């Protein structure tokens, strides 16, 4: 089966939905982070797919954006993990259901 744009988008949508589900439903903050990373990966997949099947595949535009995005995601993951550790130190928990200090 040759990869087509539709297939790529489907995989990307599935990945995004799984990531969203994880971010919305998991209790552990690390898993929420992993969900977010998955959504980011789905977005990167879309960039690459639209570049590969786009009108000018000879210029590596989409892949460059994806590489940048991955670099930023790595930094963001580092910040996110640091936040999780800080939260854990403070509240002795990583359960996002119990981290409700922001309620009005």
């Amino acid at each position, binding site marked *: 089966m040759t990869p087509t744009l539709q297939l790529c988008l489907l995989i990307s949508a599935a990945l995004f939905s799984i990531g969203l589900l994880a971010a919305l439903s998991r209790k552990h903050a690390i898993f929420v982070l992993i969900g977010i990373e998955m959504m980011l990966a789905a977005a990167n997949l879309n960039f690459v797919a639209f570049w590969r099947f786009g009108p000018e595949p000879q210029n590596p535009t989409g892949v460059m954006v994806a590489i940048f995005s991955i670099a930023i995601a790595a930094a963001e993951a580092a910040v996110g993990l640091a936040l999780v550790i800080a939260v854990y130190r403070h509240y002795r928990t990583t359960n996002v259901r119990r981290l409700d200090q*922001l309620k009005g």
Partner: protein
Amino acid sequence: MSSWLIANLWLVPAVPLAASLAILSLANSRRAGAVALAIVGQVAAFILAIAAFLPTLEEPGRRFFHNFTWFIFGEHAVRIGWVLDPLTAGMLLMITFVGLWIFVFSKGYMADDRNFCRFFAYLSFFSAAMLGVVIANSLLLLFVCWELVGLASYLLIRFWIHKPSAAAAAKKAFITTRIGDLGFFLGILWLYGSTGTLLFYDDGKGCLEGAGLLAVGASATFVALLIFSGAAGKSGQFPLHVWLPDAMEGPTPVSALIHAATMVAAGVFLVARVYPLFSIGAVDGVTPSLVVVVWIGVITSLMASLIALAQADIKRILAYSTVSQLGLMMVSLGVGGVAAGIMHLLAHGFFKALLFLGSGSVIHGCHHEQDIRKMGGLRKIMPVTFATYAVGMMALSGVPLFFAGAWTKEEILHASAHWPKSPMPYYLMLAGVVLTALYMTRQMIYVFYGERRSGSQHAHESPPVMTRPLMVLALCTVALSAILTPAWPWLHTYLSGEHAEIDFPRLIQPMLFVSLGVVAAGIGLGAVIYRRAGVADPFEQKFPALFRFLENKMWVDELYAHTVIALSRTAALVSSWMDRFFWDGLVRVVGGIGRMFGGLSAGFDERGINAGVNGGAAGAGGLGRLMSRFHSGQVQLYLGAVAVGVVALILFYAWLT
């Protein structure tokens, strides 16, 4: 030297003023320092006065003055200055010399007083103010110093403020003289309005010289009378004399300094100073304003002599005699005897200070007893006081030949005898002389002769610091007569700017026998009446009703209490009523209108605006509560909401396209 002094004549009052300020800055316990400063200040002023006196001797009648601009107000330059003429020089010498001995006396008299230093500060201040009056060459400067004299007298009369009577007397003195000063001030304004200058002498441009006098013209009578009202207030002339006897509430040296020798002299001095205003347009030496001066003087003099006859307080008798002598001086000025009046003023300064200090010595010796009916027999206990007092008494009564008062009084009688308008003042003055001799004899007999009564049982002679000034002043009273006699009328010629010539036959004049006769009559009558006087006054026993009338000062105080004071009290009540009911009511009405509008506004606020705001707030609050339910703090819920929102946006976009 002399021109320097004339330009700096202000130093004469400035020295005592500086002494006064220095004393005020001393601690209350530095008594010796205060006395030293006061006396040094006075001695320095005396030396300066002598230095100022010398140039006036060189040329008789020469007048020096020094003017300068005080400040410029728009187009008007207010100029003041000082003048040095025989009148000023004579007054300067008298004030500083008599004042000096009063200061020395005070050191003994006030020795036990708590506020000793303040007393000397006030005395020096008073002396400075009075010297300022004398040197002023501007009616404005004179008025300023005049008011300072009033202030000083107020401070000194109320010196024993713990006595309510002293406080009341000070207020009375201040207010009564202020009534006169109001007229004086109006006179100043009038004079300034018509001449444009208040300088007395200014090379022919002053208000007492040619052009200035011409500019005053017909209004001179009114100006002179207004100025005279100030003089009458200060010099205790009827009807403003009421304050002077009450002012005896002050310590005795104050009475001597202010109410005998100097301050009350200010009024007479003022009239003499502005005499050209009084005499302008005179026919035969008579002008309407001078006639007023004469009659006021006559009334004052006689009235005070009569009242003095029935007083029991040693100082009050002297106070009334002062009033009477001042009346005499006014008569003298009014009839044209300016030099005679000023001579009497100068001589009176000496012997009245002597008498007051003598009475102070008596009071001190009798442990602050002032009622002459309780004294008696002090002749042997207080020999120095007795001898000096007798000199003063004879000078005041006018015993001829050896006492200064006699010669000057004779001059006054001489001047009034030739008044063309009416011979009455002359005869009334003669009656006044008899009365003066009579009441002074009465006082002498009561205080120094006869039995020792309750108040004089433990009497003692005063210390030398008090008796020495008495001796000096007594000596001066006698010595002064050398320059007053008709044989060598040096002072008279000095004051009127002529040369004195010695002419012994002139000593014997008919007037001498007249005055000898009346004085002998007065003293003889007194000796006969009071020879056997006990506590009860023989005069009182004979004429109780008349005595009561005189004892109560002819009920002038009561008359004022029921007329002027009652009127002002009624006016005050009416004003108070107006204030309380009329103006207050008006204020209440205006206030009520304001309150009404305020109420309306408040109601509108309450029901309109507040209700709207409250409703809005309640709505916002409810909405907030509702929304806060979504704000659970659950991060995933928020994220879910974001997801729902994104999906909704995508669907919306899809629906749009």
